[in-house]
């Protein structure tokens, strides 16, 4: 390659040495460049007409560009591949419309042959609304803030292979979205480099009830949300953004796009009522179900984990629950026993003084009987949150516990000391005996 002005350097797919073929190649490039110039001018003049798909593709509007870029080994001076797969482009949404390269590659520099480094393709010449919306997204803001890994149009849609989202082969088809987002949000190196919120959320989503429905192609595969189902696409915003679909305030409405009946139940609950009174700390869907790790409610890990979720606010009740057989067995990791929701309900949690509550005086027996069919009125006066350390909560239990503690301390203190003294005296006695007597038979 003698001319430094020539940025294009066709590769060497045949494997022949440069020395043997350089002369022939220079001739070829010169021919190609002339042809490219002709075709580029032709393409520009036919720009408007080319918006319509051309049934008769010969000669194509991009033949000139492809003379160089059509070579699979085409590289820029930097070594970066600048090859374009013409066949692939032809099947893309833009290729099927016979768009000229210049429709996206609008940099005036492309007009000069050969051309050096030029600006990347622009989408806003056609998709001006999407590009404008993108600027307000978490990705767009990160980019304009100097983040060089945040997703651009091409990160999600591809480049010369862009297909309509409705096509199964599209990167943005619902079946492929998880993989598309996972390119960053499932890539540990990028997650670490860009400090992506939530960590490997793509991996978590994959294992979630939604992700598994997609992965296993269950009947729900076309109904469950994938990434964009909750986060949106050109309106993806950080959850801290009040306008985000996944913000704390907006997320229940977002879940309700599918789970409307659950939201209606929740709104009647104490938690839902607090939210309506603008108490944003009150739990919504995600506080118990999580976001990316949503599991089936019958899932053991979820059923056990949700106890700690309840306990993150109701710490005292979670503590006293752990003092009971229910709480001990669930903490050991077994679920065939009452968790919080078994008694209090899940979406319809209400305080016990509300007659509609599952643990109200009126409903308590029926609630206990769901697991203990033989329960009677005395049985349900058992306190499932008894606090042995609180005198106010019950004198008898408090003093019983105190008595047991003193008994334990007393016995172990007396016999602990007794044992320690005996041990050292016995050792001494044995040493003395070894001096004047044969060992014990």
């Amino acid at each position, binding site marked *: 390659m003698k001319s430094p002005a020539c940025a294009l350097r066709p590769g060497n797919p045949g494997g022949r040495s440069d020395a043997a073929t350089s002369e022939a190649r220079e001739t070829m490039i010169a021919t190609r460049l002339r042809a490219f110039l002709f075709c580029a001018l032709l393409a520009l003049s036919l720009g408007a007409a080319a918006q319509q798909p051309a049934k008769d593709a010969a000669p194509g509007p991009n033949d000139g560009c492809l003379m160089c870029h059509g070579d699979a080994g085409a590289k820029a001076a930097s070594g970066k591949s600048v090859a374009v797969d013409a066949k692939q482009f032809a099947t893309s949404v833009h290729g099927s419309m016979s768009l000229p390269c210049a429709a996206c590659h609008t940099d005036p520099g492309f007009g000069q042959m050969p051309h050096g480094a030029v600006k990347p393709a622009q989408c806003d010449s056609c998709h001006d609304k999407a590009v404008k919306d993108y600027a307000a997204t978490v990705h767009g803001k990160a980019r304009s803030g100097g983040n060089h890994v945040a997703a651009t149009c091409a990160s999600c849609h591809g480049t010369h292979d862009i297909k309509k989202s409705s096509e199964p082969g599209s990167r943005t088809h619902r079946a492929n979205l998880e993989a598309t987002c996972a390119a960053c949000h499932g890539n540990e190196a990028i997650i670490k480099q860009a400090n992506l919120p939530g960590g490997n959320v793509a991996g978590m989503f994959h294992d979630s009830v939604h992700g598994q429905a997609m992965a296993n192609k269950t009947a729900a595969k076309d109904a469950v949300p994938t990434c964009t189902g909750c986060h949106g696409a050109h309106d993806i915003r950080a959850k801290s953004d009040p306008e985000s679909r996944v913000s704390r305030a907006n997320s229940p409405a977002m879940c309700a796009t599918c789970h409307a009946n659950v939201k209606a139940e929740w709104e009647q609950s104490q938690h839902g009522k607090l939210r309506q009174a603008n108490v944003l700390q009150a739990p919504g869907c995600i506080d118990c179900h999580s976001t990316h790790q949503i599991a089936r409610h019958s899932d053991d890990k979820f059923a056990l984990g949700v106890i700690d979720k309840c306990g993150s606010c109701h710490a005292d009740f979670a503590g006293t629950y*752990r003092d009971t057989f229910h*709480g001990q067995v669930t*903490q*050991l990791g077994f679920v065939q026993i009452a968790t919080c929701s078994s008694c209090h309900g899940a979406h319809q949690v209400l305080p016990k003084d509300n007659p509609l509550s599952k643990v109200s005086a009126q409903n308590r027996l029926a609630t206990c009987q769901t697991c203990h069919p033989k329960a009677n009125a005395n049985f349900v006066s058992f306190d499932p949150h008894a606090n042995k350390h609180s005198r106010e909560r019950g004198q008898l*239990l408090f003093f*019983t516990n105190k008595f047991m503690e003193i008994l334990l301390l007393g016995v172990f203190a007396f016999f602990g000391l007794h044992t320690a003294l*005996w041990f050292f005296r016995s050792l001494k006695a044995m040493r003395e005996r070894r001096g004047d007597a044969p060992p014990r038979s």
Partner: protein
Amino acid sequence: MATPASALPASQAGASGRYYRRFDVLDRVMHALLMVTFIGCALTGIPLLVADHAWAQAFARMLGGFQVTMLIHRICAAIMIVVFVGHVVRVFATAARTGKWLEMVWSPNSMVPNLKDLEDIVGHVKWFLGKGPRPRFDRYTYWEKFDYWAVFWGMFIIGGSGLLLWFPFFFSQFLPGWIFNIATVVHGEEALLAVGFIFTIHFFNGHVRPEKFPMDPVIFTGRVSEHEMLDERGSEYDRLVKEGTLQAVETDAPSPGLKALAYAIGIPAVMIGTITVVLIVYSFLF
């Protein structure tokens, strides 16, 4: 025996090779059953009390889950109660048969504490501190009596609360619901006391103390050597000599097979107990 053996130096007395029966077959079988069922209840119950620890979770899972551990716990508890009731019936039946009702409660063969036990405690502690001779004990020492009554106490407290929790529908017909709150607390804490006591104090007193290490096989073989009897229970030896009943309890030496069996049962039990205590202490500290 012309000369009371206690008058002889220990070295001469021990050379006789004689053995005396300390526990009959039923005593030994009952202790073995008590031991196995106690360990069974401990291993299936303790994990609940330290359920936040990974070892407890893994162990309960290994046993087959809480329904399996609960079943093992209840089978062991039922056997233990049967053994306990059987023992009490036997004590009373023996007294009824022999007519020696007073001896049941007030004699060296009785488990009821007496004045000598008080003297022995004081004497033993003095000996620990190097301020007196070692007391000469009779058939049951004060610490053995404590162990014995601790089982009685534990049987009522743990057994009673356990039955309440096992059959709540029956008991709630005539007992208030808070009784199950009391039962839960008492069952767990008394269990910690019992397990902690047996696996440390009882093991030390009965087995792992320097004179007995690693274990005293007498509870499995039922036989004690003359040397050991003189050393540990001189007062009983002298009494039997005086009563002229020593010959009646003389027996053959434990067979090698019996001794091997004693160690095969006892040493694993001591090891299981020690590991359990270490895990409990670890779990309460960390």
